[in-house]
């Protein structure tokens, strides 16, 4: 258990556990603030020949909300995560196989999608699949006064005029995925991008701490 509360950027405290599920090849449960997500990764698996790809592994992402019927926005989340993981996973090492990522939402108190992406990345690290780079998602909100808030809480998201979420890779800190709500100016966008890029270091450090302590345990 590693809890972090960093001073410069103040991300919400993160808490993570690897290998939460023993039947999956890799799994992780991550809490960022009050938002909690559980992710399981299975792969490479034997799949139907119709969905096999000669060049790389076929990625399947299933997002399951807490209760109720599946919605269109679940499909959108699946799509964002699949495309992000497609760049992160070294898929060409596993041709004609499938990789299944299953996500279960446990608590949603704002910033569900970034938490999901971070948790997915930890589960992928846990599963031992080859990856090009790891990814870190950071969100920020623009409040009515025009201030940028990194890693906003649920109340701050509700009152914000715009929210922006960015996913960076660990090697060049380039933008892999991004999405936004609300309207904002170009200058605000640039500033948000740079500040989130800097804050992503905290997430990468958190990954390192988790993996280091995990390696010590199994060492």
């Amino acid at each position, binding site marked *: *258990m590693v809890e972090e509360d960093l001073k410069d950027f103040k991300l919400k405290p993160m*808490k*993570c*556990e*690897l*290998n*939460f*599920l*023993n*039947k*999956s*090849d890799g799994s992780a*449960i991550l*809490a960022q603030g*009050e938002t*909690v997500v*559980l992710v*399981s990764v*299975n792969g490479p*698996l*034997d*799949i139907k020949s119709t969905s096999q790809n000669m060049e790389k592994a076929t990625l*399947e992402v*299933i997002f*399951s909300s*807490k*209760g*109720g019927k599946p919605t269109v926005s679940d499909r959108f989340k699946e799509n964002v995560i699949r495309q992000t993981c497609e760049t992160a996973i070294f898929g060409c090492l596993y041709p004609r196989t*499938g990789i*299944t990522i*299953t996500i*279960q939402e*446990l*608590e949603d*108190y704002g910033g569900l999608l970034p938490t999901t992406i971070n948790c997915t990345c930890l589960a992928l690290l846990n599963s031992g699949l080859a990856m090009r780079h790891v990814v870190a998602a950071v969100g920020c909100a623009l409040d009515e006064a025009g201030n940028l808030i990194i890693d906003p809480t649920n109340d701050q998201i509700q009152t914000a005029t715009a929210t922006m979420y960015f996913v960076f890779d660990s090697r060049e800190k380039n933008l892999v995925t991004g999405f936004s709500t609300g309207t904002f100016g170009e200058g605000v966008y640039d500033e948000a991008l740079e500040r989130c890029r800097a804050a992503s270091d905290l997430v990468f450090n958190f990954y390192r701490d988790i993996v280091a*302590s*995990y390696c*010590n*345990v*199994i*060492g």
Partner: protein
Amino acid sequence: MKETIVSNSEKAFVQKLITSGHRLDGRTYKETRNHQISFGSDYGSCIASLGETKVMAQVSCEVVQPKQIRPNEGILYINVEVGPMAAPQFEANRQSDLTVYLNRLLEKCYKDSKCIDLESLCIVVEEKVWSIRVDVKILNHDGNLIECASIATLASLAHFKRPDVTRAGDKVIIHTMTEKDPIPTVLYHYPVCLTFAIFGSDILISDPSYIEEAVCMSVVDEDNVGGGLLVVGINQYKEPCLLDLTGAAIHSVNIVHKAILSASERGKLIIDIVKKSIISDDTLRQKRARINYKDIITNEHRQSLIRKELSIRLKNFNTNELKQESEEEMDQDDDDDVKIIEPSKYDIVATLPKTAEINAKTGKSAWIEISSDSEVE
């Protein structure tokens, strides 16, 4: 992905072990794995675990029009989902035999046993009733899904509170949780499903694990034809409300009787655990403690590669050498400021091929000795 088949040698080993009076994880025939129930921040949201089997249940409600034949009753709907998260062989978004089976058993246990007061869910006769939906999601499948799912369903139903409603003329006002205290669901009785695996003709095993379930459902040789899973639903008054047998026919009635007797004892214990955990959760909430699923994140599982996965242990087996080694390892853990699990009274020994490497480090080919040991018995 296709399901991994249990090999013949595994089958024979498990079968032999059980007939000689032992179980793979060192439990007695009647012993169950650890129960744990944790609640989420919403009412009616809980994760139940039985050993490594984990099931999440979430209750939600909405106002709908009642069915025409029952105009003054609310609706209870149970939906079970088994995705690839439970185990890699399951496919997503598809009804499999297992989901239909689980769904039907839970419906029998909670809907058909009339444990919920459906009439209290009525708001306006023939117009508006509450529809209660239970979403049961299997997170990890390590045997005895039905028992774990039923604990999760029961706990979430008992934990759930629906918003209060007032009628003003034609209008129905649904109050938010802050306006008026929500109302708990009325449960007449608390039924729970318990699983028994039948080995041979007269061995009854409580709370079978994944491999025990797989072995008892497959026939090893001609001598051992009997074998199956018996599910007993029972409430806190020791009244059976569900019986279900899968697998081969059983030879004597006695075994069912034995199972019901054993279930009534065990069921009482489980229902007490459920009730206790709901009461303790309630007092915490009254103290305005923030309950959240993040509390279930601990460091325990990070060690699963060395301990949790090795839930295989044998009784009456001791070597001092092995103990020393594991103590050394724990010292290492201490340095890393990680909480240590208490050393169990049994020695932990690996038999799975994956874990052999780790074992090789802790002891010198220890498990060959064990297998010979158990063979002698």
